[in-house]
């Protein structure tokens, strides 16, 4: 027994020493020559059918004209989340040149890991991004003033509603009253009390860090007039706007107007809930349902043209494992050109992060009025803040929200204040 313990301890000591030696080794990737190098590259795109179709056509269009710089497109490997897959791939050095599914919330962590190429280092890097996206591009700058992601597409979060359920509940299905918190609550109660649907709305009550983007953050963006969760290194949400949003949702959960159990299907598509918070990507999943869209409510009501929401953007990042970065940059511009952005819009219904979208593609929006609502909303988007320990900060927020709002524990104001103080500490750490 004693001998076994000594052998195990010795083995662990040797393993620890090996770990210490191996900690900063590995082959160098990227490098200054890579930025001017051209040749074949690989890209990953999302795995939903619409984006796969778009990805395949853009790769085919590029390859037809660039036989010497072939691009290979692949769906992002399956994993618990895209972020976990990309993080593991950065560590292993197996990332492709470009990933068309990079969450802005993960960019600070990927940057810290040394996994991202500074796009501002390309001669036309910053100017291309800013000319395409306009003033909204500023939200995607890292704290060092450079771009490590190209703002690609957004899915402005709005309220979808089921017209048949609204009608059954005695509510005008073409213009349900949802502009103010009082109207929203009254409509929600009418739906549940009439038994038109079991719940008025059913955002996921799960504890993952990103779930707050689809309940709190969209409402906070609207109520605060476009504030991010953190600004100038400090939390913003411990204010009247943040507290009123939390109070509203606490009332919704307390009144059983929203479900607090994990749901195993699509509560909106199957009629369990009358409303859903989602972006235009969701339209493809609704089939023949008659649906309508409304902006996010605010406490006192606002003109729709003044209301902000969460962007739910996915961006494109170039990874340091890329050996042919000049090709990757050219392909990145090609895939975000006017023509390819239009193809993205037509094939997926998602909004390219371009300035003045409705003026750029007037014919498409004239032919597809429901999408015009999202396009006009796309001019007023709030992104997740680009701060250190971003994921930890969102998890901290979610844990506080779960306790105070979904389960109604303690005082909302105290919960918000504590979460804000904890997040301030996190974002100040490098």
């Amino acid at each position, binding site marked *: 027994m004693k001998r076994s313990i000594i052998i*195990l301890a010795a*083995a*662990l*000591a*040797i*393993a*620890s*020493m*090996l*770990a*210490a030696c191996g*900690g*900063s080794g*590995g*082959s*160098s*990737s*990227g490098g200054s020559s890579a930025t001017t190098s051209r040749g074949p590259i690989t890209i990953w795109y999302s795995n939903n059918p619409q984006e796969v179709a778009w990805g395949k056509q853009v790769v085919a269009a590029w390859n037809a004209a660039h036989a010497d710089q072939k691009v290979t497109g692949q769906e992002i490997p399956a994993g618990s*989340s895209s*972020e*976990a897959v990309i*993080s*593991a791939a*950065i*560590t*292993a*050095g197996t*990332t492709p040149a470009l990933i068309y599914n990079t969450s802005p919330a993960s960019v600070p*962590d990927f940057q*810290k*890991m*040394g*996994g991202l190429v500074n796009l501002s280092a390309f001669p036309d890097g910053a100017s291309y991004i800013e000319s395409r996206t306009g003033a909204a591009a500023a939200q995607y700058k890292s704290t060092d003033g450079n771009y490590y992601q190209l703002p690609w597409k957004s899915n402005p979060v709005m309220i979808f509603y089921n017209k048949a359920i609204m009608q059954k509940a005695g509510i005008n299905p073409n213009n349900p009253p949802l502009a103010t918190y009082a109207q929203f609550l009254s409509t929600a109660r009418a739906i549940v009390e009439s038994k038109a649907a079991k719940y008025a709305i059913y955002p*996921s*009550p*799960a*504890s*993952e*860090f990103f779930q707050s983007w689809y309940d709190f953050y969209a409402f906070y963006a609207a109520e605060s007039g476009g504030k991010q969760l953190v600004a100038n290194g400090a939390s913003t949400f411990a204010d009247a706007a943040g507290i009123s949003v939390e109070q509203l949702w606490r009332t919704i959960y307390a009144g059983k107007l929203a479900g*607090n*159990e*994990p749901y*195993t299907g699509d509560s909106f598509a199957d009629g369990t809930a009358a409303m859903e918070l989602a972006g235009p990507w969701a339209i493809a999943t609704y089939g023949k349902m008659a649906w309508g869209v409304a902006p996010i409510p605010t406490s006192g009501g606002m003109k729709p043209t003044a209301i902000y929401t969460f962007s739910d953007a996915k961006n494109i990042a170039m*990874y*340091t*494992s890329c050996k042919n970065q000049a090709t990757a940059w050219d392909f990145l511009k090609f895939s975000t050109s006017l023509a390819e952005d239009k193809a993205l819009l037509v094939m997926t219904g998602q909004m390219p992060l371009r300035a003045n979208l409705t003026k750029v593609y007037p014919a498409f929006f004239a032919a597809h009025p429901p999408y015009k609502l999202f396009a006009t909303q796309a001019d007023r988007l709030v992104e997740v803040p680009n701060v250190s*320990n971003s*994921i*930890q900060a969102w*998890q901290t927020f979610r*844990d506080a929200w*779960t*306790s105070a709002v*979904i*389960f109604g*524990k303690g005082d909302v104001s105290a919960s918000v204040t504590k979460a804000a103080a904890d997040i301030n500490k996190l974002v100040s750490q490098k």
Partner: protein
Amino acid sequence: MPELQRKAAAAPAPGGQRRWRIKRVLGEHPAGLLLSAPYALFVAAVFVYPLGFGIWMSFHHYFFTAPGAVVPHPFVGLKNYATVISDPAVRASFVHVGEFLIINVPLTVIFSLLLATALNNAIHWRGFLRVSYYVPYVTASVAMITVWMFMFNSGGIVNRILGPLAPNPAWLVNTTWAMPSIALYVTWKQLGFFILLFLAALQNVPDELNEAAAIDGASRWQSYRTVTIPAVRPATTLVVLLAIITGANLFTEPYLMTSGGGPNGATTTPVFLLYQKGIEQGTPDVASAIGVLLVIGVLLIAYASRKVTERE
């Protein structure tokens, strides 16, 4: 015998001295080392090195980086451990997994032993029953968990049967009942495997022992208590150890069944937080400290349980 003579007798003959030294280092059967080397290398690669690396990480400021990225990893002493111990969420996760083990381990031992005994005595449908108990163990967790979520939600079959006795909120969103529900699910899912262990042990209990006990006037229960249960004690020790080790590593169920350690953090476990902090949040150094504390805790509990189950 004089001292010199004794030494001469113990020492090898001059010609065999080299062979004696080799035998002393490599043992009686050096070929055995060669045969076990592949497995030893496998264990070193997938267990010893990662464990050593984890321990090393827990004493340094460490985060994952791209290959070639030169980043300092300064020694931070016990800072990561202090962070972990001072975090109420981590402390709560250890309490939750303790709660899980208190429910799961006894249930596992009792039900698997009883069902194994029943199967051992069953004459009809024995094969069918064995397969039936084993099916949940080999079925994908995701599928099983989805079925249990349907069964235990507010409108599920369990609540419909219980009627007014059903808890409110429902099982998986009830801070009191969520972890016991998970413990019950895990007990059910893993029962087939533990039944097989007990069944193998029961089939090795000689019939003569029970017959002798019957001749001495023992009832069936007395015979079971004084003959069968002591005879399967090694299997009981193994079942308890495996149930503790797999239970302490609980992750999938809180991740899927209660949607990320819910409700309100009531089913977080050390391994769930280890995943959250190490993989999602980019702090593998803190996650490693949780891992090391968990390993120490499991070793202590396993040692104590072994002492209890092997007690004469």
